[in-house]
């Protein structure tokens, strides 16, 4: 009995989703000829349960991943791979900012909320159109893309051992309740998976406005034998630290509200023998 009810609820949700998409298409606010999409049409609650089974599309392993829908120019650069990943990219402020700084690398934003990825997909389309027809940008935003994904579960399905050079965790969900601490995106156990994906001497970046979460992330990454925290001087020299402090949507919001930002960056050390 409950199964029947559940199914109909899921159906209702799907119908609602369809209706919303139709409305959005009609509104034609974004994605077409360089017009930026309107954020208010893509609002979604700030949290998603990472432990539940979302209907996600992911390859069985990295070699089966077809990147061409995400990076249309990949046929010109068959050897190029995604090397920079923005985990929980949200509305994509950082992903977009990274594009012109690393024009020879593919940058990928990953986000679990569907509405938000829809928004960013359209925004990237608009930016690409603008870069081509109005003002040229290094890389032309052809090198950035976004994917709806649960990174805590499916990272190894996309990236081979040591494929990434940079990994960003910007303003992640703080999960204040002790019961939910396991859902936090930085834990010592998950750090092992990140260490697998990042090549030696690659960098893992974290930033948050929640001090408690900052302490947690530092504690867990400090405890991990494969990560070494960068010094303040090293952080200051890194352009990415400036970008993630000032270009992320959350970073701007925190600055507007006069909040504090806590940064911690880690170098991936080589495996011990």
């Amino acid at each position: 009995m409950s199964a029947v009810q559940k199914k109909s609820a899921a159906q209702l949700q799907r119908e609602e989703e369809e209706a919303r998409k139709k409305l959005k298409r009609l509104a034609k606010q974004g994605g077409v000829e360089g017009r930026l999409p309107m954020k208010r049409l893509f609002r979604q609650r700030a949290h998603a349960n990472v432990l539940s089974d979302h209907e996600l599309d992911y390859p069985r392993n990295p070699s089966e991943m077809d990147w061409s829908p995400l990076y249309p120019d990949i046929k010109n650069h068959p050897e190029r791979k995604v090397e920079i990943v923005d985990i929980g990219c949200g509305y994509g402020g950082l992903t977009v900012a990274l594009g012109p700084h690393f024009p020879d690398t593919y940058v990928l934003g990953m986000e679990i909320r569907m509405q938000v990825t829809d928004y960013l997909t359209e925004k990237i389309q608009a930016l690409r159109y603008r870069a081509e027809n109005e003002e040229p940008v290094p890389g032309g935003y052809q090198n950035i893309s976004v994917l709806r994904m649960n990174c805590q579960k499916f990272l190894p399905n996309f990236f081979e051992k040591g494929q990434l050079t940079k990994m960003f965790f910007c303003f992640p969900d703080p999960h204040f309740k002790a019961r939910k601490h396991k859902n936090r995106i930085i834990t010592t156990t998950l750090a092992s998976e990140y260490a697998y994906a990042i090549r030696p001497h690659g960098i893992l970046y974290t930033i948050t406005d929640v001090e408690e979460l900052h302490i947690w992330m530092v504690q867990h990454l400090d405890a991990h034998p494969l990560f070494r925290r960068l010094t303040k001087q090293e952080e200051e020299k890194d352009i990415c630290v400036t970008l993630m402090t000032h270009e992320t949507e959350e970073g701007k919001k925190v600055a507007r509200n006069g909040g504090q930002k806590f940064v911690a960056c880690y170098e991936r050390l080589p495996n011990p023998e």
Partner: protein
Amino acid sequence: MSSATFRHPCQTVLWNKFSDSIVCCSGPFLKEFACSTGEKLNEYSYEDKLDQKHREAAAYGQAVRFVAYSKDGSFMVTVNEDKTLCLWNVINSKIQLVKLIKVAKRCSALECSENGDIVYADKFGDVFRIEKNWLLENGIHPEEQAAAEQQAAEAAKSGKQKAIGTAEHSSVEKVNNFHPLLGHVSILTQLLICKDPKNPSRELIITSDKDEHIRVSRFPQSYVIEGFCLGHEDFVSRICLVDNDMLASGGGDNHVFLWDLSTYKCLDAFNIKAAFSNYLNMETSMALNVLLYVPPLHMLMVASEGNSGVVFIRIVDGRRLEYHSVLATPYPVISATLRESSNGLGIILALDNTKSSEQKNLSCLQYIDLRNFAAPFTLSEPPFLQAAVNELPEVEQVLCPLSQVRPLRKAHSKFFAPGETRATVGADTP
């Protein structure tokens, strides 16, 4: 409900190589029988101190889910449904409960490492390692536990709301403060510890989960992930080592995979669904609950939850999977264990005799003798299994869940058979 009684099936069977005996976990009962004589070596069950109202719940909680022996056979570890991890001393093949501890989450796998540590995985995806000495110091003595329970029961009777003994609470907290060896953000289904074929001085820990992953990490330096074996399209429920340098795996999709443990590349995949439907006429979806490797024959035996039959797959040229034979069983297979001693080579099957509509007067323990490789395999009931079955408890209803694997399937999986949904394959709780 009919009041017909039946022998309670064994949710777990394990062959004990140290005394050539078989450990049968039948609901809350743990019994051990010598394979040569059928003599009962050990018997243990929860003390029936509770009143009738709580009996079923107690039986459910005390159901033994996993059994593991230390590498030298000097001790045994078990885990119950109610998250109790028990340490037993084994002296002259007699077992004695030494210490028990409550772990924080329900267990999904249990192993003993080479140096005698206990390694277990829980349903939250974390893997923990407990040293035996730590357990001896921090565990609770069974008598203390009994006293605490009695106290709690008395307190409950006299209306005081102090339910659980303090000793139990503190042990959960102690385990909670443990750092996991490694963790998946998913339900962990099995773990294995083995030698690294690339570097024999090193050990590996292999873990499989509900989200199609098989992860290979160093042991105990498990923060270094060596690789992933990725290729499954639904949950991975069973993994097993093949000749120390290969790994076989199976789960909720249609294939059994063979992996190279040096490169983590897939060597071969065998369509197990086709074997079940072609040779046994079973059109259900696959949910592997038994995957055994028989080293002398270079052969895998596979069973799928709810299906009354097993499939044998040969490994040829050291890297290809080839169909060998099938064997129909009277009831669905729940658990199986390989007996590989100087006195015999065979597989002991635990069958689920509870759901059959017709009375088949066959017992829930069967033996497949593998000594005569040339002839087709058949089921038999050697005297030691007959003795074991006669000792199993007679009950009117099942005391613990027998279905462990099918509920792992996701609601939107493409591997559901026609007419099957997540609701229809849910766990059969008593």
